[in-house]
């Protein structure tokens, strides 16, 4: 039963053809069987999961079930889970038991889902390969010598290998969409403010957004409906009403205007990726959509702007880790400065330290205007480019990544080359727009992802486009050979 989608499992549970306990047992067995090879989990919680599954079966038996009741989910280890270890894949939080649930976790619990465990990721979500984890790298189920993408690599890997039907992730510069693309699954980054950030460990507060990773757009719609909504505990949470995302999935896309930015099809894009996107666009045209060329001329600046803003915000957010109230503390500090400096120096990994230092530098006296202020000004230009383009078209389609999954270790010692792999995803975060990545083909056995970007709070529209594409293709149904 591991190969079924969330929607299919939900149907089988409601009809009492399977029980949540059976389903959870199956997923846990597979997770334990395959985690040694994939390293996609930091923690598994078999006993609490089975207890919740038994409760879910009672609810279903009593006719009180919703679409997620009894469905196993895994949470990226960046979401606080009350009473359970929440490490953010860092030595700094290796001993951290969260005292409360993140709103996303709370909402998914209230919806009846069953948490199986917490997934591996880049440390503090800083990375594009899930290699910077304190717990070692995650592997790609399509080729274990390659990265799954990051930072939500463990979540994408778990869904791809069919260890869980759905996962949560977070996306600051592409961390849901890029691993979804490299693992051949569906990943949705909602509009900034759509999903509460309360209890989601902060990396860059003006960019971070939680969202689902699933097999299909339909499943993403079911997850997003449960995860979204205003939260008074998050001051940047949006009051906009939550749409009925599943109600519009089957709408025809006849007349849909798709914007195609030439800047996203530059020389660095690998030919098989271009071909897969072109083929997908042809199918959408056959379904009645029209393609309109648009311009996003400052796209290439999105990487520099992102690495200034994200690093600046991270240096501020991560100043809370001081070895005093929670988290890692160095041995035998000789004075207060030694306590701060060594706890942080020993508790953070290399990439986190690099970003804190860049952030500290760009915010330091004398450099603020040249870097941080400048980046915020270009951020407005990038945002306005998207806003203008979205006046002409309904959605924008681009590749999610310039290439398929790269080999483990290939970019980990060269931060700039790693950063450049985010070229197609970061500007969406800077603009705060929603975007979904869906599988649209393979090259040499490795999945290719396509990104559909929507207007603010236009999640229903991009889910509709993705679902319509998935009705006429089967890329999203492919399962890596070793995990069938």
């Amino acid at each position: 039963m591991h190969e079924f989608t969330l929607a299919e499992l939900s149907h089988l549970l409601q009809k009492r053809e399977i029980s949540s306990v059976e389903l959870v047992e199956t997923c846990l067995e597979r997770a334990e069987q395959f985690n040694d090879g994939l390293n996609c989990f930091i923690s598994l919680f078999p006993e609490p999961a089975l207890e919740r599954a038994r409760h879910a079966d009672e609810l279903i038996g009593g006719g009180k079930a919703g679409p997620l009741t009894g469905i196993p989910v895994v949470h990226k280890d960046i979401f606080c889970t009350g009473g359970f270890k929440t490490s953010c894949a860092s030595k700094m939080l290796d001993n951290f038991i969260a005292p409360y649930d993140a709103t996303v976790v709370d909402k998914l619990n209230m919806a009846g889902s069953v948490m199986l465990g917490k997934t591996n990721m880049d440390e503090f979500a800083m990375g594009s390969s899930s290699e910077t984890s304190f717990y070692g790298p995650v592997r790609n189920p399509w080729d274990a010598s390659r990265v799954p993408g990051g930072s939500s690599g463990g979540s994408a890997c778990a869904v791809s290998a069919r260890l869980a039907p759905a996962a949560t992730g977070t996306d600051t510069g592409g961390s849901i969409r890029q691993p979804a693309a490299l693992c051949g699954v569906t990943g949705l980054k909602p509009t900034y403010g759509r999903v509460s950030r309360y209890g989601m460990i902060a990396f860059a507060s003006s960019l971070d957004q939680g969202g689902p990773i699933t097999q299909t757009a339909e499943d993403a719609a079911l997850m997003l409906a449960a995860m979204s909504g205003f939260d008074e505990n998050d001051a940047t949470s949006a009051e906009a009403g939550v749409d009925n995302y599943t109600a519009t999935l089957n709408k025809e896309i006849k007349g849909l205007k798709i914007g195609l930015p030439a800047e996203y099809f530059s020389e660095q894009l690998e030919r098989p990726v271009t071909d897969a996107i072109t083929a997908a666009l042809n199918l959408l045209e056959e379904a009645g959509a029209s393609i309109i060329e648009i311009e996003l001329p400052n796209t290439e600046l999105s990487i520099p702007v992102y690495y200034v803003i994200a690093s600046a915000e991270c240096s501020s957010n991560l100043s809370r880790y001081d070895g005093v109230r929670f988290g890692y503390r160095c041995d035998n500090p000789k004075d207060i400065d030694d306590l701060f400096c060594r706890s942080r120096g020993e508790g953070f990994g290399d990439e986190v330290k690099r970003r804190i230092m860049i952030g500290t530098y760009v915010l330091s006296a004398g450099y603020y205007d040249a870097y941080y202020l400048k980046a915020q000004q270009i951020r407005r230009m990038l945002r306005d480019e998207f806003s203008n383009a979205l006046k002409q078209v309904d959605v924008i389609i681009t590749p999610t990544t310039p290439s398929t999954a790269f080999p483990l270790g290939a970019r980990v010692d060269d931060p700039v080359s790693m950063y450049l792999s985010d070229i197609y995803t970061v500007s969406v975060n800077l603009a705060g727009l929603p975007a979904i990545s869906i599988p649209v083909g393979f090259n040499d056995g490795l999945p290719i992802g396509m990104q559909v970007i929507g207007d603010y709070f236009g999640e229903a529209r991009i889910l509709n486009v993705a679902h319509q594409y998935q009705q006429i293709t089967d890329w999203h149904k492919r399962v890596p050979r070793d995990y069938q």
Partner: protein
Amino acid sequence: MSFNKTTVQDIAWLARLAIDDQSIAGYEKDLTDILALVERMKKVNTADIQPLAHPLEIDTQLRPDAVTEENQRDDFQKIAPAITDGHYLVPKFVE
């Protein structure tokens, strides 16, 4: 701009990060490379453009100034590295 040993040490101190001597050369190179990437912004004329701090430009949500949570000090201190009598313990820094 390129980072040298002194600038790396200065920034590490501002960020309260202890870094060992062997890794300084690596930081010099990495931070210099990252800054070179960032400096691509300089070619853009941003005169008269207002900075954008938040993608939606919505008003920050404020709650009524009322106590909504109970004191959970004991719970929070369960995960503290060192406490005594309800206080967090740190090395002495005031004479």
